[in-house]
């Protein structure tokens, strides 16, 4: 079957206890060789979804297939053929870098030499610390080691649960460069992240919030779907600014965005009108400029709509 999706999720629901609806009717497909992002804030249900797909949890409803294998029935086949990197650093801290890699290679029945080509780029940076205990590595190094261990058996599908959380900006950048290279080697990658700015690095993304998928599309299309004029505004009193802007007649939505407040408008109006409105409300140090739409703006928009 040439067109069989690498990951096929259909109407998956998962509940923890009676109160928490972790996932609600989630469906999406990831094509072979695709770098697919699962983007959403903490508690959106990303980890639960990852665990269902890696056969660690059973869904209450719906079906999911990885490489055509059912996550419930064919869990042994899936476990043999996928790579999984949990959100928390999950290697042996008292084992050295080398011993960890050797251990995971062996339990997957692989030899390091065989698949070294796949991890060379990543592991070569760890080579100088070969004998260092994994627990003594820096955050970025830990992630590289975990990725090496998840890749050493040449998985066809790679699941990465928030691989860049708690990692410095430089390491994050490097990590995503590695993912791009892996994708070129034909590995399907499902990666989850709470960082909206990382969404643009994926081929397609699913925006997920409170267990529901808001939108699935390419990052460009998601940004493009935002059709409202957008201004970035800053004054000396940011807290009052948001409340005041929300009372402005043409405001569609206003929300904090870095050092600014992003103001989405129902219709195009002159920035001077906004300036005048704020000045009338005794704001000082007013700065208004046009803002470029990002995934986060789309996400906020989708959230308010749903």
């Amino acid at each position, binding site marked *: 079957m040439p067109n069989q999706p690498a990951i096929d999720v259909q109407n998956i629901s998962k509940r923890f206890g009676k109160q928490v609806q972790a996932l609600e009717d989630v469906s999406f497909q990831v094509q072979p060789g695709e770098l697919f992002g699962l983007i959403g804030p903490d508690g959106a249900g990303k980890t639960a979804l990852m665990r269902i797909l890696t056969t660690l949890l059973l869904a209450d409803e719906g079906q999911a297939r990885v490489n055509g294998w059912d996550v419930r029935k064919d869990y042994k086949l899936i476990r043999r053929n996928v790579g999984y990197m949990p959100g928390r650093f999950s290697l042996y801290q008292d084992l050295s870098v080398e*011993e960890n890699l050797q251990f995971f290679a062996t*339990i997957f029945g692989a030899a390091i030499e065989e698949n070294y080509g796949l991890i060379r780029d990543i592991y070569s940076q760890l080579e100088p610390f070969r004998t260092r205990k994994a627990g003594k590595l820096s955050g970025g190094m830990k992630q590289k080691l975990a990725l090496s261990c998840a890749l050493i058996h040449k998985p066809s599908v790679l699941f990465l649960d928030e691989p860049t959380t708690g990692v410095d900006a430089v390491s994050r950048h490097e990590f995503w460069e590695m993912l791009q290279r892996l994708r070129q080697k034909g590995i399907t990658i499902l990666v989850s992240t709470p960082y909206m700015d990382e969404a643009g690095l994926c081929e397609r993304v699913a925006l997920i919030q409170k267990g529901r998928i808001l939108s699935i599309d390419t990052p460009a299309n998601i940004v493009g779907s935002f059709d409202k004029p957008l201004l970035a505004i800053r004054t000396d009193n940011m807290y009052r600014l948001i409340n005041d802007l929300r009372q402005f007649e043409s405001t569609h939505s206003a929300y904090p965005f870095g050092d600014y407040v992003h103001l989405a408008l129902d219709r195009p109006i002159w920035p001077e009108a906004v300036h005048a409105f704020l000045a009338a409300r005794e704001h000082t140090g007013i700065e208004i400029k046009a803002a470029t739409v990002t995934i986060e703006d789309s996400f906020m928009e989708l959230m308010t709509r749903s």
Partner: protein
Amino acid sequence: MKQLLIFIRKEAYHIFRDKRTLLILLGMPMVQVLLFGFAITNEINNARIAILDLSKGEMSRDIIQRMAASGYFEIGENLHSLSDIERHFRQGKTKLVAVFPPQLEEKLLRNTPVQIQLVADATDPNTATTLINYASAIIGRYMQEQNQGKALPLAITTEVKMLYNPRLKSVYMFVPGVITIILMLMSAMMTSIAITREKELGTMEVLLVSPLRPSTIVIGKVIPYILLALTMAAIVLMLGAFVFGMPIRGSLLLLIAECVLFVITSLSLGILISTRTETQQVAMLISLMALMLPTILLSGFIFPIESMPKVLQLLSNIIPAKWFIIIIKNVMLRGTGFDFIWKETLILLGMALFFIAASIRNFKIRLA
């Protein structure tokens, strides 16, 4: 097979790299044996006693001397009147007072019955009983010697022979007991912690998403700990033999084989606990609470099973430690071979198989 080997190697790294835990594990049996051997003992040496000698004859002096020479007693004060006795006990100066009646020799020569009174402080009943027994034995033996050659009218005496432990040394009781407790607790606790630690650190998650079978994980965990537990058993046995003179009369090989069997039983019990718990602390508490008390109280280590209420006697049958203590006492003290303990061995083996099967069955292949 390769998977199992690397798993065992990984587990061995965990054990040997955690130097502090290793030190505690190997030091604990030593401390326990020495504590039991020197401090917790019901043998009595050099107990302070007082004498009220109203006879002041040769005979009473002889008896007193023998008591002093026995090593059990240290003769403290000589009292002068009956009223002194009460005062003396109240001051806590003495554990026992021996009262010799006046005219001991004369009465004996005239064949009138004589009574030597032994007054003991029974606030600690065990000590009191032991002291009285020691003293009576010394006096009895003295009388026997005096009567030698003389025809006595109708005397029934008992001749006591204490088999296997003629001097009634308590080391014979506590070495098997300590080995049992240490093997049971350490083995169960160590494995239950080793597995829950992987759950806590999240490494179990990665192991689950791998082709490793539950049986490989369980067996890989158990094997290094068998060796560690046997090292502990060896330490206890050697301390028992060299410091306290505990004999090993049976086959050493049989003893080791039985130890291995018991260790496997305990380890699999630990794994069973870990399959049902999520954190190291809970696992440790359960191993301690659920295993320590029954092992100490119901195994026959301290309290004889025969004198327990019927319910507890029945309950003691499911305690693996009970069977192991029977086995180990037989092998070490009586020097019996396998043909006398096959039944107990079979019971232990059955328990081990049951626990292993139950833990592999209970092993969660998913997170929830």
